[in-house]
């Protein structure tokens, strides 16, 4: 095999470029949370509930407190005196920091030990005696609303059931009418099982409360440092200017590191109590069992069409399992996230979406794992339903999709649940994917193989994402509008610094954002420092998730940089003694129109801006610009994915033979990084479709609490990805870019599932399609994959 092309080393702007951050990572000099050591630092460990539902009768910490290396033992009773036993969730609920009355899921936080070293802290957990009275647990969301179901949230006054919300979008009457006139209606029950982002680095925090200055410094694995700081100020009553949140290098996030976890709050309390810095880093089981899971959507889906295959309408009634606390991270207005974009890439007459959220005795969360605020569930639902319809109509699934796509001339297109798709050319992407795949030949090969009794399947998924949240008038998290700031400053010698509100977890922001400044200003990316992940040194913004860094912060940087360029123009005009109107810009310099020999480079202009030259009236010294970007709309990346699988007829093991991914995310700032983002998301798809599930037994014991049970894809399950691209710029983004971070995670699971079901000739079976699940499906024995019961 040959390697890919060498990256162009130093493009001044967009293009392939090696990452600036890699120099430290390949030397083992990254600086992750657990690498940070402060003088006198103590270590915390959390005692967790072994029960999914139990009343706490008593907690005896005497023996733990007597441990010679223990400095503090914190329980819910102590937190109650500080008003910190409960904190607000990100979704109009509360979350227990340490359980006071009851535990509500296995792995819930019960006590916190602070000790001199991490081993002693763990030892002391064994010395805490908790007397539990076990209670019946509700594990199955479908039984949580039964009249005899135990009430999980009796902490909420007057709560007599496990219901959280009912929410709908679209037009019910129009949808019912479209279904009534349809020739064909296909209905399917689908589970998108509970999965977990499982970044390689678990979550952790160090808190250091300086009692003299009153300043609290926090180092945290957070994707949203500014949001964390504001929440600490609002919840704990700490003055916001006295809180500094630093997000060091993060070993993957994928949504797992958005929210504030009890462990984080406990390090703050631990530092206040002991007067020392306190570190807590969760272990892998804690990560899988207690931090933000994803999905857990029970979807009843219906699709209506004419007998010729014109899709008329879509309808879903979905049950959302939110676990013991409603702590999903999403814009306030949307309790089901952006799930109502389940209209997908098709031109429909009507659509209606109903979602009911319920409590169960499982860990809280729900929006995580690169899901774009639940576009993942939506995309899976519609792309499975379209395949079910193709099966019903005996039509080729590619042909059915091509027949129903929103056409390029229909953009901007407002879908039936209210989203305004900004731009797209779906047929072009679909045909390119089919060309790369050799779709006709693959179908011919499949016919031959079927005749020989071999199991080969071809699956298609066409997704439309909605990312870059979002317009302030529609979107906030805990009342904070989803706008992001950026500041660009050119130093006297022509080097620059750009300060961001968003926070990389591996996406390569130090390179990409330098390339944006380079593109707009002509300063080489290596001359541009990207500062992020430190609330004392960056402008406010809501952070990195929902593929929003480039759509929101990227736009802020582009506009801030253009403001620098505009200011440079005024200064250059003075230097050249001409009117600014007489100047022309070429990357890196202003010159008198038609005479490039007069050029003043941005570096020369920067020096003049800091020098003694008299500046034009109204122009201040120095060369800088800033912007707070309020996106006018979301962006809508899309893509066409085709998967080819072979299934061993003896073991029913699925092998992904090929995966073709055509992505359209608008212009690519660094194509190498974009391709890397897609590769990673495709592997997520293999994991979710074939391997990953956090299942529970009937007592609420978590059966996916380690990497022995929660299986992630390795190099052996992943094929060599085949990528393609089309470019349809966003008309409202200053750079035309749309974001790509979650596209492949959103789009790929349906393609793989569709391929497996195509191979075995079964209309539907739930993920993960393990050998056992494929066997059950072929035997006609549908089986829940999320419960070890039935």
């Amino acid at each position, binding site marked *: 095999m040959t390697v*890919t092309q060498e990256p162009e080393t130093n493009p001044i702007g967009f293009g392939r470029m090696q990452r600036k951050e890699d120099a430290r990572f390949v030397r083992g000099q990254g600086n992750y949370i657990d690498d940070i050591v402060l003088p006198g630092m103590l270590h915390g460990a959390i005692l967790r509930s072994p029960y999914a539902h139990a009343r706490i009768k008593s907690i005896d910490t005497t023996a733990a407190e007597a441990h010679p290396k223990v400095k503090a033992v914190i329980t819910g009773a102590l937190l109650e005196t500080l008003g910190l036993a409960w904190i607000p969730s990100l979704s109009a609920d509360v979350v227990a920091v340490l359980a006071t009355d009851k535990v509500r899921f296995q792995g819930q936080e019960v006590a916190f030990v602070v000790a001199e070293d991490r081993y002693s802290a763990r030892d002391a957990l064994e010395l805490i005696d908790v007397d539990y009275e076990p209670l019946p647990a509700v594990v199955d969301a479908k039984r949580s609303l039964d009249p005899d179901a135990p009430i999980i949230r009796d902490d909420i006054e007057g709560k007599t059931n496990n219901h959280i919300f009912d929410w709908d979008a679209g037009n019910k009457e129009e949808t019912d009418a479209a279904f009534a006139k349809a020739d064909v209606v296909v209905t399917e029950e689908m589970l998108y099982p509970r999965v977990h982002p499982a970044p390689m680095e678990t979550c952790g925090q160090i808190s250091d409360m300086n009692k003299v200055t009153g300043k609290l410094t926090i180092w945290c694995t957070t994707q949203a440092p500014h949001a964390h700081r504001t929440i600490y100020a609002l919840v704990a009553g700490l003055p916001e200017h006295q809180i500094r949140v630093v997000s060091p290098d993060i070993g993957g996030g994928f949504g797992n590191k958005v929210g504030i976890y009890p462990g984080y709050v406990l390090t703050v309390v631990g530092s206040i109590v002991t007067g020392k810095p306190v570190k807590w880093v969760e272990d892998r089981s804690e990560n899988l069992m207690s931090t933000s899971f994803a999905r857990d959507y029970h979807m009843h889906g219906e699709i209506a069409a004419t007998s010729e295959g014109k899709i008329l309408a879509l309808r879903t009634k979905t049950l959302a399992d939110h676990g013991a606390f409603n702590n999903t991270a999403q814009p306030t207005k949307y309790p089901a996230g952006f799930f109502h974009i389940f209209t997908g890439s098709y031109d429909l007459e009507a659509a209606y979406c109903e979602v009911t959220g319920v409590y169960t005795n499982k860990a809280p969360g729900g929006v995580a794992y690169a899901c774009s605020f639940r576009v993942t569930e939506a995309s899976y639902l519609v792309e499975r339903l379209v395949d079910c319809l193709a099966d019903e109509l005996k039509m080729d699934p590619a042909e059915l999709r091509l027949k129903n796509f929103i056409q390029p001339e229909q953009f901007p297109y407002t879908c039936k649940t209210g989203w305004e798709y900004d731009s797209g050319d779906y047929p072009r992407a679909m045909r390119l994917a089919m060309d790369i795949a050799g779709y006709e030949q693959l179908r011919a090969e499949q016919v031959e193989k079927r005749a020989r009794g071999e199991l080969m399947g071809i699956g298609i998924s066409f997704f439309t994402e909605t990312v870059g949240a979002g317009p302030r008038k529609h979107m906030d998290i805990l009342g904070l509008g989803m706008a992001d700031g950026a500041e660009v400053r050119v130093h006297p010698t022509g080097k620059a610094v750009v300060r961001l509100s968003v926070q990389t*977890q591996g996406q390569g922001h130090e390179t990409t954002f330098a390339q944006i400044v380079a593109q707009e200003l002509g300063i080489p990316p290596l001359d541009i420092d990207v500062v992020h992940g430190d609330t004392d040194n960056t402008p406010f913004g809501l952070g990195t998730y929902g593929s929003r860094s480039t759509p929101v912060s990227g736009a802020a940087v582009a506009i801030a940089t253009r403001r620098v360029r505009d200011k440079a123009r005024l200064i250059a005009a003075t230097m050249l003694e001409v009117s600014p109107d007489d100047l022309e810009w070429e990357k890196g310099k202003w010159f008198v129109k038609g005479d490039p020999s007069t050029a003043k480079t941005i570096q020369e202009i920067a020096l003049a801006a800091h020098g003694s030259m008299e500046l034009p009236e109204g122009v201040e010294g120095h060369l800088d610009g800033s912007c707070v970007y309020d996106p006018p709309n979301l962006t809508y990346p899309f893509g066409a994915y085709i998967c080819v699988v072979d299934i061993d007829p003896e073991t029913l093991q699925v092998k992904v033979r090929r995966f073709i991914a055509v992505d359209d995310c608008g212009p690519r700032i660094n194509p190498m990084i974009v391709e890397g983002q897609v590769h990673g998301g*495709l592997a997520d798809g293999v994991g979710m479709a074939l391997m990953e599930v956090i299942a529970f037994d009937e007592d609420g014991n978590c059966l996916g609490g380690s990497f022995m049970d929660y299986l992630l894809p390795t190099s052996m399950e992943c094929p060599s990805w085949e990528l393609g691209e089309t470019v349809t710029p966003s008309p409202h983004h200053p750079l035309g870019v749309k974001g790509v971070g979650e596209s492949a995670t959103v789009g790929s699971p349906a393609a793989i599932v569709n391929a497996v079901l195509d191979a075995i000739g079964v209309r539907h079976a739930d993920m993960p399609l393990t050998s056992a699940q494929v066997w059950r499906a072929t035997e006609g024995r549908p089986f829940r994959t999320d419960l070890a019961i039935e």
Partner: protein
Amino acid sequence: MQVTMTVNGKEVTRDVEPRLLLVHFIRDELGLTGTHWGCDTSNCGACVLWMDGEPVKSCTVLTPMAAGREIRTVEDLEQDGVLDPIQQGFVSQHGLQCGFCTPGMMMTCRHLLDHNPDPSEHEIRVAISGQICRCTGYENIVRSVRWAAEHTTSEEVSA
């Protein structure tokens, strides 16, 4: 108990608890934080280093078991200011994103190349199959190893 071993060519002696995991010894006692910890169950490989020339998962080795042995970590790959070809390959081919699995991956792949200088894609995938990366989908890790196989001299990787 007192334990002596050689780490990256230097002999070190420390008093440790017998139960101390090697990964914690390397990170917390010696401050070599390039070796990472990612799971409790020897599944992820973020903690891979070499013991007597063989890649091991250091979360599954007790520190006393390393007594008298030679340990090599990611910090030893760069020699005299020159990156090892495997390090340069990961940079060149975008073989890393968050960087957390990278040291363990590179230690395994360096070992592979030392024993099989021209590995096929399949051989590379088998070599890293005991390690997990959540970012790259493995494609560019495979390419990084091939890059290193094709660029073996220090002149080629001095950039």
